[in-house]
């Protein structure tokens, strides 16, 4: 298991009232939006466990939606995320659902849709604003981190064995970044790969460059983008 950062304890800087139910929820929302790669038209949240019991009082609903709207955990606008969503014409719905015994009590399943595709993400908020992403569509993964910890690239590409080595070489060639390991899972004829990286943060222009120059890639998302407080 990777090590906890001092700033997982001393932070995040956030809008109240609960780090697991508000800040963590916002972060799961940010993550889902980053993975969806586009503006969703309709978002459905399935709240599990403690999220389902007490989401109203902790503003979990507003925070989740705020995350989907790319708000940061310290953004005072979270309070008004319903209004912002209405203005942006994004439909949202909250449902209570028991997702299974193996999940942490603070878990949500987010289903994002637009006219072209549909995607689901399951994430848990495990306390202190630290979150874990456990499932993307049918792809079991285990990503853990707070804003400031993700140094991962999520890549969706064709079932093609050359894509990942090519990307890996390209990332390794960037100064100050190394690839530690790669996780891969295939679903619906596509492969989703996660490259865990060490070293400095990857910059957005570099990510765009990678996406442009590599063939057979649908999208590359840098999860370090969520880093800022």
């Amino acid at each position, binding site marked *: 298991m990777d090590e906890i950062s001092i700033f997982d304890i001393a932070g*995040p800087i956030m809008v109240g*009232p609960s780090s*697991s139910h508000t800040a963590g929820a916002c972060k799961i929302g940010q993550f889902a939006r980053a993975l969806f790669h586009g503006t969703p038209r309709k978002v459905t949240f399935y709240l599990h466990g403690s999220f389902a019991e007490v989401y109203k009082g902790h503003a979990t609903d507003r925070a989740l939606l705020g995350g989907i709207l790319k708000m940061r955990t310290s953004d005072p606008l979270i309070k008004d995320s319903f209004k912002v969503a209405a203005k942006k014409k994004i439909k949202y719905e909250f449902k209570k659902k028991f997702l299974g015994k193996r999940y942490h009590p603070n878990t949500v399943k987010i289903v994002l849709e637009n006219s072209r595709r549909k995607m689901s993400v399951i994430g848990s908020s495990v306390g202190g604003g630290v979150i874990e992403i456990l499932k993307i569509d049918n792809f079991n993964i285990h990503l853990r981190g707070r804003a400031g910890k993700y140094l991962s690239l999520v890549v969706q590409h064709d079932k093609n064995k050359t894509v990942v080595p090519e990307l890996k070489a390209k990332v390794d060639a960037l100064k100050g970044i190394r690839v530690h390991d790669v996780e891969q899972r295939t679903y619906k004829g596509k492969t989703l790969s996660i490259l865990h990286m060490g070293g400095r943060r990857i910059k957005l222009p570099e990510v765009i460059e990678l996406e442009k120059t590599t063939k057979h890639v649908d999208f590359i998302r840098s999860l370090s983008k969520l880093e800022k407080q």
Partner: protein
Amino acid sequence: MKYHFQTAEELIKLTKRHNVPISEIAKLYESQRSGNAISTIRNKMKLTRDFMYKAVKTGIKSNKKSIMGISGGDAQKIYESLKNLKRMMGNKVTIRAMAYALAVSEQNARMGRIVAFPTAGGAGVVPGVLFSSAEHFKAGKRKLLRGLFCASAVGLIIAEGSTISAAKGGCQAEVGSAVAMAAAGLTEMRGGTPEQCFDASAIAFKSYLGLACDPLAGLVEVPCIKRNAIGCMNAIGASDMAMAGVQSYVPFDEVVRAARDIGRTMPRTIKETALGGLAITPTGNRVKKKLGLRITREL
């Protein structure tokens, strides 16, 4: 890893080997973990400190109610009482600490900006204790930073060995952790040894074992806000005991293990679900009704 630690024992060994305080090891650990320079880490903590201070100062002036209207305005009342200290039993440091803790927690309840330290539920304790005592010793900002780093290191050990999520471990995991962290931070600021820091932490943490997380309607307001204030008293008391030479009979690492065990066996109804304890008293159910929540049973 050179500065790796997961338990108090390992951390104390590191401080002995390098002959530095806990806060220094915390910085080195983070620097090694993230690959950032020490100065970057110090700056990040400075930013954290400044946000905490802002939350204290805004909260102390505000008497706005929370969104649901069941809390707010108490920080100001206690802060005012400082003007008439003769009427109070506590001393200036403890009363100011309570005022600061209430200020942060109330800010949190009205969806203001705060620093979760270690979580939002217990966010008032560390700033309350550390800012108030720093004013007392006229300590510079640098010393305050030491307190914060030391407190974070203790929080890290709790997070590794147990949990800091009330949904998993009850209130002991949130306010309890915060009190243990504040006790250690304060002890280091006062010049205590690493052992004394952990004695203070263990003494404080032991008195929070098994505390239920049963807030009304699941809101982080009642009893959370006032628990933060009382937590400051406990942290200061534990630090005083450690500085006077009192040792914890059970070492800190074992207390953490106990917290983990208690958290596991604690019933679900008192783990931030609003299904037991204070949440289902007649008052608790009234708040639930106001929010449109389902009422399961009443005491």
